[in-house]
């Protein structure tokens, strides 16, 4: 790990915070076709439960590797899958920077998702931690890995919109 000067670390933090604000707003605003573009071409995206994560079990609730699988998740929910319409409101916590060097950074952050169904019923749908790895370019950030660890193993009804 290369230790960056404090001012550079602050710059990275600011860029990550702005990037992830854009990321969650794209989901919450139903601009889901933009979602894969937040990832590198070969990125890994996984949603798993804390129980499996802590027991070292490989099962994920959702596993994608690469843009193709990310886009398939969106095309499936747009055209193939049946579910009741609903929206998310993501609330994301401060980013702990676990590692930061000139080309990449790793963070851990809390998140919460409030789900509102089409009839107005609202619930805390998910909460937990996100472990993100960013590829840092001079003018753009991309997620090269995003591992979402859900605190609860229970998922109410179904998970179709990504986190």
């Amino acid at each position: 790990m290369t230790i960056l000067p404090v001012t550079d670390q602050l710059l990275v933090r600011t860029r990550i915070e702005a990037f992830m604000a854009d990321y969650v707003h794209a989901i919450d605003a139903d601009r889901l076709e933009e979602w894969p573009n937040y990832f590198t071409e070969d990125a890994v995206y996984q949603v798993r439960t804390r129980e499996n994560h802590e027991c070292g079990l490989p099962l994920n609730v959702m596993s994608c590797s690469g843009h193709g699988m990310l886009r398939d998740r969106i095309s499936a929910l747009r055209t193939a899958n049946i579910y009741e319409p609903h929206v998310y409101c993501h609330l994301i916590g401060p980013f702990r920077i676990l590692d930061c060097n000139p080309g990449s950074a790793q963070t851990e952050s809390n998140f919460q998702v409030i789900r509102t169904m089409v009839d107005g019923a609202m619930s805390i749908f998910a909460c937990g931690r996100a472990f993100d790895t960013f590829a840092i370019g001079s003018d753009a950030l991309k997620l090269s890995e995003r591992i979402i660890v859900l605190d609860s193993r229970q998922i109410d009804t179904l998970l179709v919109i990504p986190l």
Partner: protein
Amino acid sequence: MTEVSRADRALRAPAFTWPRDDTMRVPYQVYTDPELYALEQQRLFRGPTWNFLCLEAEIPNSGDYKATHVGDAPVVVVRKMDGGISAVLNRCAHKGAVLCYKPRGNIQEFNCVYHNWVYNLEGKLQAVAFRRGVGGKGGVGADFDQSQHNLEPLRVTTYRGLVFGTFSNLTPSFRDYLGDELLKCVDRVFIKSVKVLGYHSQVLPNNWKLYAENNKDSYHASLLHVFHNTFGVVRANMGGGIKLSANGWHHLSYTERTPPNDDATGREKVRSLKEEYSLEDPSVMEHRLELGDRITNSIQTVFPTLVIQQILNALAVRHLIPRGPERSELLWTVLGFADDDEDLLKVRIRNNNLVGPAGFISMEDGCVGGFVQRTAKVDPSAETIMPMGGRGIEPSEGSRVTEAAVRGFWKGWRECMWL
């Protein structure tokens, strides 16, 4: 009928009678009525049924336990010191506190945290704290008989690494319960030692029986699920069929990857066949033949609440837990084989995008039960109708366009419930 069930019937007869002799129609009341729900816990889940407890692979060592449920009753299943398996109601005989409140662990004995009553792994009461009081004062009375306060035991049986329990002495042997033909279907999947790849839990906004029916309903598979129909996992014109136990309680529905069949009736214009839909990365649908046949989809039920699933290389047992009249929880234990190599494990993990709470296929079963549940109270005496494949519970070779297995489920329900 035994004396016990006669007494039970007299005490708890609900204001409900099944409307006719067959099970082609089902009254909506069975999905909402709290009295029927309570009666199910007694007559069905504590009745002559083998209920899934866990996999032997989850409790390999002496003292390993897993907390589970039979119906909505908490049960704990434990590997004994002699290597056998016992199961007890997870409730202290003293004040009723749950004994094992963590989902799994390793114990030498059951030790209630509330008042330190201690039981051996068979559930026999071993010690009562301060039984003789302190300093000659307090303690139990002279008439207290320690041998009368054991944990409530279940009979346990294992088959191919699956562990089942029953509260009833009337339940036949597991072999007789499931029958030889369906036992062979268990053998087909549990061909060698399994390992657990992880767990899911899906909370369903519906009575448990709506999900039990969904699993028995081979008619819906290619109609609801675009992924089944469009990608040829389950399509009405593919080979396969359904098998039923002689009493109709248990079933298997399977589909084989057969040469394309251009029979127009199998390509009926239905929403779920989207010929223009494709995946950018079809590796989610990769299938390595590993069970000695070309079956793409095999869903087997063991009455009342177990499903054994093979969808491509996604193997799992699903255990359904009632959580009140209008809610249930589906616990998925996702499996691989102990000797899987890295590549096969990757195939399984990718295939598991099809199943579980976010499964391209299974998510839809998560919501359709709720669609029925919300209309069930409109008129509880109104009925659903299941006319596909006749009125009876005949198996169907070569076609899954039948609701026979669902009718078989209701036959089992009526027989257990004395209704």
